[in-house]
Every structure is written in C-alpha cells, then in structure tokens.
C-alpha cells in the first residue's frame, strides 16, 4: 500500500533508505529543517543546508520514485543565539518560493527558553507574512507538556494564523488533546525510546479518532527507523483495522493537510 512519510530527515540517511522506503510503498517524503547534531557557526551553513534540502534531496529521492518536499526554518535548538538566529531568519524568504517548499518548519521549542520563544514568535510572523503552512516541533520528554502549552498559547497570539494550517508534531498521550482542541493538526512520531511506539500510536488513534492526525518516523541521525510508518501499518492490520482506515491515516490525512500548500501535488 502506498503511503506518505510526512516527517523524515533524509540528509541524515543513506540512499539505501530511499530504496527501502520506495519498496515499502512510500511515494512522498517531507523533510523539515532541523538540528544536524551540532551547532552551525554561521548563517552561510544554514543557507547551504536549505539548498541541500530543496535542490539535492529532491533529486536523490526522485531516483527512487519518491517525491521530496521540504520545510524551511531555524530549529529551536539553535535559537539561543539571537543574532545568528535573526540572520538565518532573514535568509528564509529566499527559499519559500522554491517548488518543493511546503512552509515554515519544524519550528517550536526545545528547552522552553525565552530566546527560543522569541524566535518562535518571529517564525510565526514570517509564516503569516508569507502565507505559509507551519510545522511545529514540540520538546522532548519532561519538557514536552510545558513546551506544548507555551507553543499553543504563542500561536493564539497570532490571530491571522488559521489553526488548521498548523500541525503540532511529536504529540503524546498527554499533549494530543491539547493540540486537537485548538483546531490544529497533530503528528504522532514513531521514534524509539524518547517518543512513541506503534502500539501507543494506534492506541491514540483508538481514543482520539482519525481526524487531523498523521503518523511519521522523524528518522534522522539518531537511533530511528525510516520504515516506522509501514511498521505501524502492519500493527494496525494485526489489530484488525481496515485497509481504508490505514489509508486514511497514512495517505489521505497527510495529503489533506499538505494540499493546503499550492506547491504540494499528489503523484499521478
């Protein structure tokens, strides 16, 4: 069955992973800008990275029959240096017209600091000004609950942002309802140890339904699985979920959210 991987950091993965993704049914990959595991020392490093995910990765994916889209931003882990962060933000408009760019992301918070929050607000302003979709990263582990609330309250301070044009990612059992109740979309991330297992993800679908939810792997340079979404699809089958249910979560829902961007196109 075909599916969409709505959150994968393919710059950190080998070309073999593109091949395996295609064999597993993946036809579209979306790559948010993120932290590469170390802090970049200049805005030029970010410009090169934005070039990589908007020019090089689409070609690498296309060689394996996968359409590649990107989100552009400065991630919250590198937001503490306000001067550098603002220099990077000034670069972002140059990339928003590229044909594979879906919007601003993955912005958000990491340690819930004042500077992270300031830069988050500035990203939201940028998204409003350029009429972009938004993909939001919520913090890890003990910081997630507080950070999610700060993020949702910050978004509410921008009344020009339509809630259905914002996806709150990495939700877990204690944050999923917060995001959905504000009218946003929510992403459940299938990531070992620090986020969510396939079984827990499907539990959340059992409890909260299918509306405005998607699954992603967020595979990156850490211990993670690019095939986490098809693994979850298999788990749904083990529980007796219909093929239509599986398609709703792994194809139709991401397609609905992403189609709010005029640059997103489903394959023929």
């Amino acid at each position, binding site marked *: 069955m075909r599916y969409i991987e709505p959150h994968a950091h393919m710059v950190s993965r080998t070309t073999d992973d593109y091949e395996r993704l295609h064999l597993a049914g993946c036809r579209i990959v979306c790559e948010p800008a993120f932290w590469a595991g170390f802090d970049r020392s200049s805005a030029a490093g970010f410009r090169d990275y934005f070039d990589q995910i908007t020019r090089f990765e689409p070609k690498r994916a296309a060689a394996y029959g996968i359409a590649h889209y990107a989100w552009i931003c400065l991630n919250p882990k590198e937001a503490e240096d306000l001067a550098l962060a603002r220099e990077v933000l000034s670069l972002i408009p140059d990339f928003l017209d590229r044909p594979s760019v879906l919007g601003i992301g993955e912005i958000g918070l990491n340690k819930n600091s004042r500077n992270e929050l300031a830069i988050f607000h500035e990203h939201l302003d940028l998204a409003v000004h350029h009429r972009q979709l938004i993909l939001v990263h919520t913090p890890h*582990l003990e*910081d997630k609950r507080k950070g999610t609330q700060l993020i949702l309250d910050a978004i509410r301070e921008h009344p020009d942002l339509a809630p259905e044009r914002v996806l709150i990612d990495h939700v877990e059992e204690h944050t999923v309802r917060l995001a959905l109740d504000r009218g946003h979309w929510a992403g459940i991330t299938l990531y070992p140890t620090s986020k969510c297992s396939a079984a827990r993800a499907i*539990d959340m679908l059992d409890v909260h339904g299918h509306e405005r939810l998607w699954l992603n792997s967020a595979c990156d340079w850490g211990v993670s699985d690019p095939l986490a979404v098809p693994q979850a699809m298999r788990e749904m089958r083990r529980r007796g979920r219909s093929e239509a249910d599986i398609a709703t979560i792994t194809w139709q829902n991401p397609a609905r959210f992403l189609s709010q961007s005029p640059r997103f196109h489903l394959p023929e």
Partner: protein
Amino acid sequence: MDKPQVTDLYFMDARSRLIELAATLDRLHRASGETDFRWHCLMDCLPILQDTAPEKTARILERMSDPTTAPIPAAGEKGACGVWPGYRRDHT
C-alpha cells in the same frame, strides 16, 4: 479489540517488559552510590499501574513533566533527561 485479543497480541510483550524493569531495579539495588532523582519519580509512578483509573500513560507522562509554566531564562543544554530535574520524592 476485546480483552482476549489484547491478551493475545500484547501479554507476552508486557510480561517481558515487566521482567526487564524488575531486573533493572535489581541492578540498581546492587549498585553503589546515590540514587538519581529520576528513579524516585519512576518508583512513584508504579502505583499508577495498579490503580483502577484510566489514562495511565498520560498520567505517568504528566508525573515526569516540568509542571512550571514560565519560559526558563536561557537554554543551558539541549538534551532532556526524562524527568523534570525539580522533581522531589514528595511531589504530588
């Protein structure tokens, strides 16, 4: 799913995870030195497994979370350690 289906699909996995947790706590018991605050929080979460109320997962995640609401002055480090560092054994 009915309860027999949940049992068929998940009992053996749950049994394995419970024994792994027990072995980890045995390992901690044998080890020297101070007990990290995160273990206190983990132990405080165990009664949630035995009570009859729903939403055990969310309640455990909440117990481990930072309960404060204001942004911190600065992000000194990037990582998270699994339990809010302000957690104390008498945290309720």
